[in-house]
């Protein structure tokens, strides 16, 4: 097998991104860097702006100020399909497949839209097999169990051979036993395809296991960065999760 990892990617830079919907500021001045082939965890309580952040980076929402760059190219406010063509591909929190289509056709669609060769699926075969997608190859996506649908959606994103993967809570809704699939998935993406991964996740065990670095969002602000071990022991981070003092951040605007 061609295990040669193609680490040639560019870093993803978020620079002072802010987003306001009318007068409501949901996102203030967030900056971070995802190095090529790196893995950065994003955590924060519900409503912290994590999905908004993925929407901004992928191009679905334009930031109110600040910018997003992929290498030297400014990509914020560009159409989603343009950014996907540049190698910046996201996954969705809910299951995202084309219903009425088989597993096979879902994967073929992903390859077609990303203008990739079918042989990518041969490279993905071990992963497809591990998730149980090979044995369900000709079944319709919508009749698969939730966990399988979710893995199918994630595999479709990976099949486009992105340089950067934006994963929006990949483990949400998966059973404990299925969560090791996410480890395998991220490992494979980094090892085989040299993907940089931005991992938004609520599962702290998963974050601790996988991420060398995390950033913490609360009320649309970046409140901490560092390794999971140190960040998760910080008082302000614990307060953010347990609903401590800083909560009315949103309310004052």
């Amino acid at each position: 097998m061609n295990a040669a990892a193609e680490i040639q990617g560019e870093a993803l830079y978020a620079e002072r991104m802010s987003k306001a919907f009318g007068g409501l500021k949901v996102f203030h001045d967030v900056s971070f860097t995802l190095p090529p082939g790196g893995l950065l965890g994003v955590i924060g309580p519900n409503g912290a702006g994590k999905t908004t952040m993925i929407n901004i980076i992928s191009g679905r929402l334009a930031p109110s100020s600040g910018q997003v760059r992929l290498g030297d190219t400014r990509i914020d406010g560009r159409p989603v399909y343009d950014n996907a063509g540049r190698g910046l591909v996201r996954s969705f929190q809910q299951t995202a497949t084309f219903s009425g289509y088989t597993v096979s056709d879902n994967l073929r669609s992903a390859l077609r839209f990303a203008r990739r060769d079918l042989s990518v699926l041969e490279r993905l075969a071990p992963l497809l097999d591990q998730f149980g997608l090979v044995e369900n190859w000709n079944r319709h996506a919508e009749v698969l169990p939730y966990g399988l649908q979710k893995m199918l959606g994630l595999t479709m994103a990976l099949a486009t051979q992105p340089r950067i993967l934006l994963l929006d809570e990949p483990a949400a809704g998966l059973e404990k036993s299925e969560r090791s699939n996410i480890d395998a998935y991220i490992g494979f993406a980094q090892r085989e395809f040299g993907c940089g991964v931005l991992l938004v996740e609520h599962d702290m065990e998963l974050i601790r296991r996988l991420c060398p670095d995390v950033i913490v969002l609360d009320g649309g602000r970046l409140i901490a960065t560092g390794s999971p071990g140190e960040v998760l022991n910080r008082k302000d981070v614990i307060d953010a999760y347990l609903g401590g003092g800083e909560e009315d951040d949103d309310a004052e605007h």
Partner: protein
Amino acid sequence: MTTATATVSGYLKQKAPFFSGHEWITLGIVLLAFAIPTLTANPQFLSQANLILIAATAALGVYIMLRLDLMSFAVPSFMAIGGYTVAVLSLRLGVTDVIVLGLAAFLVPALCAIPLGWLILRLKGVYFVLVTFVLTEIVQLLLFEAAPLTGGSNGLVGMPAVRFFGIELWDNSHVLLTTTGLAFAGFLITAIFTRRFRYEFAAIEKNDVLAESLGLACWKYKAMAFAVAAGVSGLAGFALVNMLMTAHPTSFAPMSSVNYITYTIVGGKGSILGTLVGAILLVSATDYFALRGELSPGLFGLLIIVVTLLARGGVIGTVTTLVRSWRGKGMRPLADGAARKAPKGGA
């Protein structure tokens, strides 16, 4: 690990045929219409066949847009553009070659659809429906008001017969041949177009947000579909004007869009065969029950309600589901095929 790779490689060798059975059957039925004039000279029958083919071709405009989950009322507008293009070309400029006229009847509406599409394709759902309906009203108004070009309320009357390589196609059976040729062109274009981009269209229909996130520029496909749907409607407009030898605004009444939608939905929107079968059944029924005029839109509306509630796959969808359950459930179609599109409404 290697076995998984081998299995996947094996699966990748399976290829779905370009046309499914439904496309072949549909094109075959339309081709058969070429034989009608040799079988009968009954003017009633010939005119009935004409009406069915025109209705079916027009309804293809609805079928194409439904691939993208867009309900279009704009068919009569583009029929009018196609029909009047032909009338103006033949009356004012003396063009009678059926191939030149056919090309014009396709291309002019398709070109008009590009700027219109740029304006309205950003709308979804009910808003798209509403705007396409308003479009038909605007076109009506233009046809009446732009009298120097369109003849206003008199229409454009007395077109010369069209010619095919110099042969004049003037009598009833010739008119049917022209209509059949235009219908076949419309069905062939639609079949090739919808099959060529079936993955793109299905993805946009099911989940356009996901399709874009994988790199598909959805707007390009919507714009293309809108233009091709307009072109095919234009061919139907040509056939209608050719049959009536007149281009008149009332031939392209806004309410007729309901009929075209009904043909496609009652026949079965999941397959091109549905559009043809819907047109055959409903145009015949309209004639049989003599429900011309005011009653038919109302009854068609009722029929849409019944189909939507009871058999969303329409005639073809329901028949396909039944056939499949007779054959036994073990035989799921493998990669592709018309049968796959049907079960949506099976319940």
